[in-house]
């Protein structure tokens, strides 16, 4: 199993699409930073126009913490989409190039093989989120400096600079769990569909539907609390004035359960199916 994981990591390191994934993440980050640099002040003025009539604001609200928060919001769609495309490719490319057959012609168990794919996908996801977080903090603080964070979430919430720092870090940690869920879903879709294009399309639809369903009230307490799409936004809860820790823990725990179930489904399907590419 360890040697299979090492072999998977070696392949990922050598593939050019890994570099494309890293480049895509950094481009999104750069795009947000450049937009904020040129247009951020105007947007904040517009957002706070009414409040400025009644309150006096000191310091610069267009600071590193706000930029990090804006980049953090790429966890809604951009980052999971990139992750789903890259991670499903870990398996679909093996189907397309028929290398899966060659691997399975070696004394390699199906369970160990697919399990190593899942493990490597989770590690890859964590590394991508870590890269995003570290680079975002470094570049945002370097260019924009530190300052208080203003966030609009059921109203305007203001956080002092130090408090904003740890809330942002926790949000990245919680967001990583959501990203793992989407990555595991994409790999399971790859197991089912085998074909890259079909997997990308279904993954994108899954992501869009998941985001849409998050906003829909099912008029049912059970579904509203336990349906998977309602569990992927726990990282946003760190920006309520009072952090609802119990809700965050519950959502993360349940989402991890969904991740495990999705993984088990993928493993069972892969194990039962013939290797036919």
């Amino acid at each position: 199993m360890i040697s299979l994981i090492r072999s998977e990591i070696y392949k990922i390191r050598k593939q050019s699409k890994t570099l494309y994934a890293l480049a895509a993440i950094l481009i999104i980050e750069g795009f947000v930073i450049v937009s904020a640099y040129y247009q951020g002040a105007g947007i904040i003025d517009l957002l706070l126009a009414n409040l400025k009539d009644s309150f006096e604001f000191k310091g610069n609200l267009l600071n590193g913490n706000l930029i990090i928060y804006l980049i953090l919001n790429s966890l809604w769609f951009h980052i999971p989409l990139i992750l789903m495309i890259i991670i499903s490719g870990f398996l679909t490319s093996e189907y397309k190039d028929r290398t899966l057959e060659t691997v399975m012609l070696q004394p390699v168990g199906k369970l160990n093989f697919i399990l190593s794919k899942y493990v490597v996908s989770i590690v890859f996801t964590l590394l991508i989120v870590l890269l995003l977080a570290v680079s975002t903090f470094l570049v945002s603080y370097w260019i924009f400096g530190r300052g208080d964070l203003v966030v609009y979430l059921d109203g305007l919430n203001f956080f002092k600079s130090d408090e904003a720092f740890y809330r942002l870090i926790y949000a990245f940690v919680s967001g990583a769990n959501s990203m793992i869920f989407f990555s595991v879903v994409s790999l399971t879709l790859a197991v089912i569909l085998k074909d890259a294009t079909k997997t990308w399309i279904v993954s994108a639809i899954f992501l869009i539907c998941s985001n849409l369903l998050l906003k829909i009230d099912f008029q049912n307490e059970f579904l509203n609390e336990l349906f998977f799409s309602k569990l992927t936004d726990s990282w946003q809860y760190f920006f309520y004035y009072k952090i609802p820790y119990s809700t965050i823990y519950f959502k993360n725990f349940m989402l991890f359960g969904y991740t495990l179930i999705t993984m088990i489904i993928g493993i069972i399907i892969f194990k039962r199916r013939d290797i036919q590419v």
Partner: protein
Amino acid sequence: MILEARNISKSYGSLEVLKNVTLECHKGKIYGLIGANGTGKSTLFRILLGLIKADGGSIEINSQGIKPIGGIIEKPALYGYLSAYGNLKVFARSQGLNLTKELYSQSMQQVGLSTKRTDAVNNYSLGMKQRLGLAVALLNNPDCIVLDEPFSGLDPMGIIALHELIKKLSRQNQITIIISSHIVGELTDLCDTLCILNGGEIIKKGPAAELLNDSVTTYKIVGNNLEMSEVLQSINAIFSKKSAFVSPKMISISEILQKLIEEGQEVTACIPQTDLKALFGGEKI
């Protein structure tokens, strides 16, 4: 016996691809599986290699090794973005084998590839990919190798080189080799035993030379002025340029050749023509 497959059957829906196929292979021998496209060769090989499950039957491989059987299905599937070393490293590592420099050199040498090339396998010719695929299949020293259509797409020199390599592996390393092809000529000189697969069944099995002799109904006789020969005219030979095609019925080919010499004809060659219909059992192809 190194491999024993008994009564293997496989269906896809209502289509019966394999019907009670039995195959017995001995150590160090080369077995050829001949059949037209779509007769179930690849399906049988995939079952032997454990890639797909048979609906019925049993497979027994008498090997104590980590890897009892290896093989290549259709064209070799390798990681095109990796070098030969990278590919061998990935496949070795996946089976818990440490690819040392010595093992790498030995693996490449065994299949006649140079260790000097460090570029991506995407740049390799099909023949080189076949050799590298074979090196991957030979990792961990399997007792049996299955090669599905290994000559497909190779140029004549490539075919000869692969023939030599397969013979070497069989004779020197005592590896049992099972090869499939839909082209009879590719396997005749190579295999000890031939199996004819038609309509999902092995319809004939036996020593390659014997099986082919039984399926020879026509001979191509090459020589000068053959159309003038009364012997050939009397047995209704078909003439074409400097050759004549004869299908002896009442007399044997040796008697025909004897009479041609007596007649003063200059015969330069006599080539047996395998009757594919007779070999493949006629209708079901």
